[in-house]
């Protein structure tokens, strides 16, 4: 079932989010949320304010999978708590704010916070529900814990599932630009017009420059190498396949929500700012946050080594292409794509299975990560200018 929000958007979950605006208020936020079903916690640990982090928190708070929000801050941190509250209120959903200084410390804030959460949960229970159709959904794709099977099984199968979704008239989104190195020609070829082609080239060039400056090309060493991936070009060639074959409608920035149906490439690489500021995809949770900020209702997540994580705000449908991994971690994985490696199922067949699972999850079925209580988040410092309409962004 879908939940109809005040601003007309439709969501597939009905969470109350408790948002902390500095590390110092995070334990209180966790204690406020503890034990309640459908209440999650996320936030930003820094005390220096960061416009990007504020924008990201607002986008997650405004997301249609969220029914209501409680912000828990200290009162002395850099992030402007009232501004965050206003930004989220624009979506029409109820927002409550508690500041530990004003409440009078840990115990008093936890007390007030739990009462606030109960009243927000009551509000959530009365949100109107209606059937949801696939064309209403925005789906994201991401890979994590990749190995040599990822480009042969899980990623192409997810690419098929994404293509199926695009045919319904829904929206799709991918990011991880650092792991599309060498795939320029393929991506540019799918741009719907020359302007979008130029934006794709700019985003990829920026990613290359960022990588050369930080001396880090995505994450290739370590377990990826043990899993058979030797170079960033190889990892990119495999990762590219999860984006399917649909034309690319536009390139968007983090926390930019597209309005027209189609497939979007999200540039999550920091913008040039004296020194490059911030990391792109320092871990998978940061990547999920990017996709959620663009409005993704759910994310198809491929893994070779086997990831156990989930995400705040959106359900992850996890697809594993390594048959050895699936045997050990099936409790954490939603779809076994290792059958492709074993020659038991075709990519097309698994792609269809993945898409059917996504629709079922959209209609309320819990994913493995949700069942196990995985609700990770990672919001950290970055500089990236907000959405720009020109090509390319200057």
């Amino acid at each position: 079932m879908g939940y109809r929000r005040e601003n007309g958007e439709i969501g597939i979950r009905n969470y109350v989010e408790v948002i902390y605006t500095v590390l110092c208020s995070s334990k209180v936020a966790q204690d406020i949320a503890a034990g309640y079903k459908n209440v999650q916690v996320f936030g930003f640990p820094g005390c220096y304010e960061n416009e990007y982090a504020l924008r990201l928190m607002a986008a997650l708070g405004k997301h249609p999978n969220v029914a209501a929000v409680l912000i828990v801050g200290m009162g002395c941190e850099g992030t402007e708590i009232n501004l965050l509250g206003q930004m989220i209120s624009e979506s029409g959903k109820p927002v409550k704010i508690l500041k530990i200084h004003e409440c009078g410390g840990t115990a008093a804030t936890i007390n007030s916070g739990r009462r606030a959460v109960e009243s927000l949960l009551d509000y959530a229970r009365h949100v109107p529900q209606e059937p949801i159709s696939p064309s209403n959904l925005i789906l994201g794709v991401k890979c994590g814990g990749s190995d040599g099977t990822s480009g042969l099984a899980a990623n192409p199968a997810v690419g098929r599932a994404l293509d199926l979704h695009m045919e319904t008239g829904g929206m799709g989104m991918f990011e991880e630009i650092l792991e599309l190195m060498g795939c320029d020609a393929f991506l540019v070829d799918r741009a719907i017009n020359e302007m979008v082609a130029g934006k794709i080239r700019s985003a990829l060039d920026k990613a290359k420059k960022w990588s050369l400056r930080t001396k880090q090309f995505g994450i290739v060493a370590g377990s990826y190498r043990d899993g058979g991936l030797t170079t960033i070009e190889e990892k990119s060639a495999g990762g590219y396949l999860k984006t399917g074959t649909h034309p690319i409608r536009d390139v968007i920035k983090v926390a930019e929500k597209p309005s027209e149906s189609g497939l979007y490439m999200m540039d999550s690489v920091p913008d040039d700012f004296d020194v490059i500021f911030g990391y792109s995809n320092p871990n998978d949770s940061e990547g999920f946050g990017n996709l959620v900020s663009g409005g993704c209702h759910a994310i198809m997540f491929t893994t070779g080594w086997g990831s156990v994580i989930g995400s705040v705000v959106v359900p992850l449908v996890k697809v594993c292409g390594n048959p050895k991994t699936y045997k050990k971690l099936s409790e954490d994985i939603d779809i076994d794509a290792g059958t492709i490696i074993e020659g038991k199922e075709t990519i097309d067949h698994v792609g269809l299975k993945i898409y059917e699972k996504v629709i079922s999850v959209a209609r309320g079925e819990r994913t493995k990560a949700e069942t196990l209580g995985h609700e990770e988040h990672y919001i950290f410092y970055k500089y990236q200018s907000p959405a720009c309409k020109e090509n390319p962004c200057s």
Partner: protein
Amino acid sequence: MDQIAFKVNQNDNVATALTDIGAGQTVIIRGDREIQKVLAKNEIPLGHKIAIHRIRAGGDITKSGLPIGRATKDIEIGLWVHVHNLASKIDIATDRSDND
């Protein structure tokens, strides 16, 4: 049990092991119209690459129809292809094998 490796694109000069492959075993290369058989000269774990053409040092390694790096040594058919003989053309910082 058959040892199998998958060739993604007809222009590829490596295939990816779909099973763990022992040194000295015959590997069936699937993916092309014609089935090729290659003798594995190394142990090649599931997910890792085996050379299915001879590749000269400095030449491109091609997988999924794309260049994924350059050979740092001459590579015979049947050899394991990984950090010891394949280097990225883009990433100059982290492509050094620990064995160098």
